[in-house]
């Protein structure tokens, strides 16, 4: 017992100050990102009366966009998804659906609904694709430009590469078949390319949780908070980390992660980097890192920009099992990419990406769950061995949770001042409750799952994607004139 006491005592002595510094640094850096994002939003709101979107929507000079949509067993949603993408407000866009060896009627549903005909022309070979392309189908009428690539199953990244082969427009956007896209999404996310065509190489749009929202014909018509606490917490988590965090990084020109559910890229750059890495778990992160490396090494001026307006809606996991799998995969992807690009970390050649963003991701994204769990183990042990005064320990715990709660509340304040999409009082109440509840079990659980993902990567265990169990959208009744939920 004495040995354990001594060991613990030494651990406390050694770790106390670094842990405290870490705790202050992580939350303060989140606050700094939120402050940067707030500044951007204030600027953005002041400019809302002269965005020029109407002009862009009508101009034949607006750069064309190829929308790539990989689909695997999406027969229930594919037609609505494709239709909603075809109907997006944009003067020149083509839709390329890649049927990734679906075993259901995804392909047939597309052929029947959109009257597709076989395209027997030779296939372009601009980027490597592993899965054999079986057949290409194209829309026969002139009203819309739809291509469907039917290929053997080889995963999302490889499917996107297959789509990239056939993309003809100057810009390429990658969307998920199960995501819902706002009608003006292409206009908003392509605007940085129109404003700064020489330098902008990639843009990302905000992805929000569709759980609890009312959907009509593939469009979110009424935004609401989900009923399940797990999904509610993810809504505020997305707000803090994705909307505000990424906007903050974008302001520093150090955005390293663009969500795969809505990312837009210059086609020539995508081809130059060779498309997506089909072996990577964090393929979106990996792609953006490869673009950063290419642009920095070739000393070309460039920007990766985040567009803060909500453009895409996706269903977040509503069960622990699916959430656990998602977080394990995310963390594993994070580790693999950080490790792969470790040479860029603290390397001044890579500017803010190398000197700020990557060290942040190592210290505050990758290692955070480990330290959180160490704290969760050490504090009870310290209490048991009389090394920590219970009153003091409790006080310290309360401070850490209050600070974490405040960071999320600050994100809610910014959301309320900018986009305020959760308009009902009860939704606001739900957000505040979720921000509080996030610290009481959720964060600790996600820390465990993230560590499991990291551990699996270190051991080299094969990554299983699993199936995302979907609860489906709240569809608005066809006859309903008024929104009712």
């Amino acid at each position, binding site marked *: 017992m004495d040995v354990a006491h001594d060991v613990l005592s030494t651990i406390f002595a050694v770790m106390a100050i670094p842990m405290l510094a870490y705790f202050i640094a992580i939350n303060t850096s989140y606050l700094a990102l939120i402050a940067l994002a707030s500044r951007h939003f204030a600027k953005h709101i002041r400019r809302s009366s002269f965005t020029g979107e109407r002009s862009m929507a009508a101009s034949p*000079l607006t750069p064309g966009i190829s929308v790539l949509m990989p689909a695997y067993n999406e027969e229930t949603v594919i037609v609505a998804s494709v239709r909603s993408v075809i109907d997006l407000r944009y003067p020149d866009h083509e839709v390329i659906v890649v049927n990734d060896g679906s075993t259901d009627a995804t392909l047939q549903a597309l052929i029947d609904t959109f009257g597709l005909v076989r395209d027997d022309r030779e296939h372009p070979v601009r980027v490597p694709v592993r899965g054999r392309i079986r057949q290409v189908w194209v829309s026969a009428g002139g009203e819309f430009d739809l291509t469907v690539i039917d290929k053997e199953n080889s995963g999302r990244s490889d499917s996107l590469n297959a789509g990239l082969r056939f993309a003809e427009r100057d810009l390429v956007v990658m969307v998920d078949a199960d995501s819902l896209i706002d009608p003006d999404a292409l206009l908003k996310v392509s605007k940085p390319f129109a404003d700064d065509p020489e330098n902008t190489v990639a843009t990302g749009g905000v992805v929000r949780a569709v759980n609890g929202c009312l959907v009509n014909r593939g469009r979110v018509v009424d935004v609401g908070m989900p009923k399940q606490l797990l999904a509610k917490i993810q809504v505020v988590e997305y707000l803090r980390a994705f909307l505000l965090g990424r906007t903050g990084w974008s302001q520093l020109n150090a955005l390293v992660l663009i969500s795969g559910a809505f990312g837009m890229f210059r086609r020539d750059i995508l081809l130059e980097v060779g498309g997506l890495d089909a072996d990577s778990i964090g393929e979106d992160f990996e792609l953006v890192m490869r673009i950063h490396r290419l642009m920095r090494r070739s000393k070309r001026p460039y920007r990766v920009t985040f567009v803060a307006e909500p453009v895409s809606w996706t269903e977040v996991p509503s069960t622990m099992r699916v959430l656990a799998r998602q977080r394990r995969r995310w963390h594993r992807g994070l580790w693999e990419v950080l490790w792969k690009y470790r040479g860029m970390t603290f390397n001044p050649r890579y500017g803010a990406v190398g000197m700020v963003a990557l060290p942040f991701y190592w210290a505050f994204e990758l290692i955070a769950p480990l330290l959180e769990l160490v704290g969760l183990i050490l504090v009870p042990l310290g209490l048991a061995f009389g090394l920590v005064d219970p009153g003091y320990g409790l006080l310290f715990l309360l401070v850490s949770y209050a600070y974490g709660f405040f960071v999320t509340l600050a994100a809610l*304040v910014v959301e309320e001042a900018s986009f305020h999409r959760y308009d009902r009082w009860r939704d606001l109440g739900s957000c505040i409750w979720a921000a509080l509840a996030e610290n009481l079990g959720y964060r600790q659980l996600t820390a465990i799952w993230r560590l499991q993902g990291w551990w699996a990567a270190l051991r080299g265990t094969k990554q299983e994607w699993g199936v995302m169990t979907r609860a489906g959208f709240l569809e608005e009744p066809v006859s309903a004139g008024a929104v009712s939920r």
Partner: protein
Amino acid sequence: MPTLISSSVVFSLLIASTTACAVAVVLVLAMRLFRRVHARRMRRLTDRVRPAILQTAVAEQDELDDSLAVFRSLRGRARRSAESMATRMLYDVTGETRTNLTHILIACGTVKRAVARTTSTVPVRRARAAEILGLIDFPDAVGHLIRLAQDENAEVRSVATRALGRTGRREAIAALLAALPSSSGVPAVIVGSALLEAAQHSAAAISGGFTDEDPAVRRTTAILASHVMSPGAIPSLITAVTADKEPLVRIAAARSLTRLQTRQAVPALYNAASSGHSAVSVAATAALASFPSAWTQEVLNDLRHHPDVDIRRAATATPIGG
């Protein structure tokens, strides 16, 4: 840990962070409440001014003065509400309705304020002023917009350039052409779109762009040519598709020729398709493939045996094209 920081400091930290949380909650609730109350008030005001705006928008000339009296008397939020509604409508209307809505904004004092703001020290205000001046049917606006199109701030220049195009006036063309070079800092998409909006006056003016030194100017000219100059643009486009030293200009010229569908362009496009630059070759081949097959059968047969798969693909008719 007990020796790390004293309990009183931790307790103070707890009080500080709890207070910060409470302030954040109060702030978010107050913002929501304010926004709700404000939105309700604006809705009421909009409901009040909407009939007057709609009536004035479609009023005949002799009724206009009486209709405008309402707007001259508006103050504060009611005036702002009328301004906001009339401005929003201006994006979607033309002709007499646009003129009438302009009169509403003049009666509200909006135009006078916008003109005054063109000299504001705040760039966002100048940009907003430019946006308003571009929407209205007001001859004096062009002079202010031309000045703003040379503003020191790039954002103001962009908004003013777009607004100049929207006015559709002849006087705007010189300023728009001056914004074409990449050194102007105004994105080519904005300048090009503005020249398109003022197409009736810009057609003759842009033809000089084909020989400009700046590739950005030549490229935008090549894109615009098929929209505003056709068929007068054909000789210049044919020259550009083969002779321009910048691939992006040659691609733009090939795409423009696709739109113009002229047999004259076949030899030049074939030359471009056989050039060493893959993207140019693909664009030229795609243009040829879009022409009636009677004009291009021979050259496309040849291109179908090209070593570059993208060119072979472009030369092969799509199932839709037959």
